[in-house]
């Protein structure tokens, strides 16, 4: 029997501890991990909970992140509920195995505490690692604050383990800004959290000797394409409804409402910021202030589900907006930012095509202030009023040196 942990209705936890408690409450069977800053405390705390009898499971210490995810793949194929955590360089070393996990349709949960990619070496938060994972066939959920890393951390199991979905799920949170910042967290009780998930029901478990199964088969030109097509088909057609269903169920037990696309003050918005991570929250504050101070009709769209990409939902939310700023926290290294590309592909399907501007910000943990976000809204308002984009397409903000901008000048 595992020990129950008595939690207060309000805890002061950082995002890492919040995520660790979601693993404990899900009673994860196997964590195979190679700790890396800033995600370390997630697996460290799971190991502590395990050692103190709060989880019945197994902690596998391995020699690299490649081995960590390989261990997760084996444990998940065997039939266990499996999770791990990583960041940055560790995530990069995992990439090869990420494709294995999704291709074998294994519902592993991976907490990615977003951190910059070297060189130069940097332990702070940006979205380079999250962007690196976007073609890997995983479901990617993004939290904008610590509470959400906990909530999504629980919901990830229910989404990925569903037999109609059977896909691994990443839960992202911003390194340090979320992972190491303590705020009020409203946890569920252990009983409520576990009964929300229920026991893991493995699908074609390798430890079921009555029903032998093969994982990781080779398929050449004859079948490879069909397998990939089926995976894409399931991502495009099965995940959205499942995510919505799980969000709705979770709202019933937590009172917290989640949506695939988190629009804020968009009903009458003329200008919008599209962002991910903690910047979504800060941009909401900036939108409120700029509406009061300058009367600019500002709104914010936060991408809760990055993969599969909620094309139709975003299209609907952006149908009346006049100017959009896409905020990318990752160096695009030679083109526009990922969000700019994705959102542009959406809005050309609308009758009214807005002016589009791309802002590169916050690399390696560089601050984005509420004032800077207000300035972006003001700049977007100029384009909205002109009825076309004014100024260059891409601009770097809060970087040293003269203004750095590219394209469309």
């Amino acid at each position, binding site marked *: 029997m595992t020990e129950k942990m008595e939690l207060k209705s*309000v805890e002061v936890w950082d995002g890492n501890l919040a995520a660790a408690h979601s693993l404990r409450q899900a009673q994860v069977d196997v964590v195979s991990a190679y700790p890396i800053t800033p995600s370390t405390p997630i697996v460290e705390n799971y190991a502590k909970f395990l050692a103190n009898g709060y989880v019945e499971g197994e902690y596998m210490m391995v020699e690299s992140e490649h081995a960590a995810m390989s261990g997760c793949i084996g444990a998940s194929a065997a039939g266990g509920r499996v999770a791990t955590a990583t960041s940055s360089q560790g995530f990069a070393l995992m990439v090869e195995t990420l494709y294995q996990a999704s291709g074998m349709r294994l519902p592993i949960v991976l907490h990615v505490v977003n951190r910059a990619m070297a060189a130069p070496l940097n332990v702070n938060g940006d979205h380079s690692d999250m962007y690196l994972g976007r073609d890997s066939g995983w479901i990617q959920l993004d939290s904008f604050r610590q509470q959400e890393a906990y909530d999504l951390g629980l919901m990830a199991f229910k989404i990925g383990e569903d037999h109609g979905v059977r896909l691994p799920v990443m839960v992202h949170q911003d390194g340090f800004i979320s992972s190491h910042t303590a705020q009020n967290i409203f946890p569920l009780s252990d009983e409520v959290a576990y009964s929300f998930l229920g026991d893991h029901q493995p699908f074609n478990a390798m430890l079921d000797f009555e029903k032998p199964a093969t994982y990781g088969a080779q398929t050449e030109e004859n079948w490879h394409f069909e397998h990939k097509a089926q995976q894409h088909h399931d991502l495009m057609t099965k995940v959205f409804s499942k995510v919505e269903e799980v969000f709705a169920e979770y709202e019933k037990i937590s009172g917290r409402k989640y949506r695939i696309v988190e629009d804020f003050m968009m009903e009458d918005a003329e200008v919008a910021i599209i962002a991910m991570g903690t910047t979504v929250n800060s941009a*909401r*504050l900036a939108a409120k202030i700029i509406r009061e101070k300058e009367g600019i009709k500002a709104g914010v769209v936060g991408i809760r589900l990055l993969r599969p990409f909620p094309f139709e939902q975003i299209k609907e939310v952006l149908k009346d907006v006049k100017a959009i700023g896409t905020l990318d926290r990752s160096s695009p290294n030679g083109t526009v930012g990922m969000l700019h590309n994705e959102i542009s592909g959406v809005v050309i399907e609308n009758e009214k095509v807005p002016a589009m501007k791309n802002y590169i910000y916050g690399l390696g943990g560089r601050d984005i202030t509420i004032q800077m976000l207000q300035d972006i809204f003001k700049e977007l308002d100029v384009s909205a009023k002109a009825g076309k984009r004014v100024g260059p397409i891409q601009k770097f903000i809060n970087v040293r040196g003269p203004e750095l901008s590219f394209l469309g000048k």
Partner: protein
Amino acid sequence: MLEIRWHSRAGQGAVTGAKGLADVIATTGKYVQAFAFYGSAKRGAAMTAYNRVDDEDIINHEKFMNPDFVLVIDPALTYTDDITLNEKDDTKYIITTHLSKDDLIKSQPKLEGKDVYVVDCMRISQEKIGKAIPNTPMLGALMKISGMYDIDFFKEKMLEVLSKFPQKIIDANMAAIETAYNEVE
């Protein structure tokens, strides 16, 4: 929104102090935030920690801050850190020093005309706790200067925050909080 910036050296307990303060404040129904800039700083390196407190949910994730209180828990940082950075007209400074307030201001003239309070958290923590961990005494001084909570209420809540420690350490910290509360001026 109440905002606090701590100036500390890594290892002196500013992060623990900021989180402990957040823990106490959260029990009163307020919203809190506690964070630090440390990167890969080593023990002894200058660092800053931060608190935000509000009656409403805190959705601000910027690192930038115009602090209401600046808490300096290492005496040398008054001279080597930019402790007046992004200050407001009414920012209050609580500074760890063995000097009197007048002598402190003479030694660091940029504090002239500012709302400065002094307390020797180093001596207090060495006397009461037996180690130079000046974080808890600073919380006692903050309670006095801010009037945030009644000292008895604060100590009662700190008991819960410190409950995982041995009784001897809890008692020593309580004495340090009380002494700093009485001595800050």
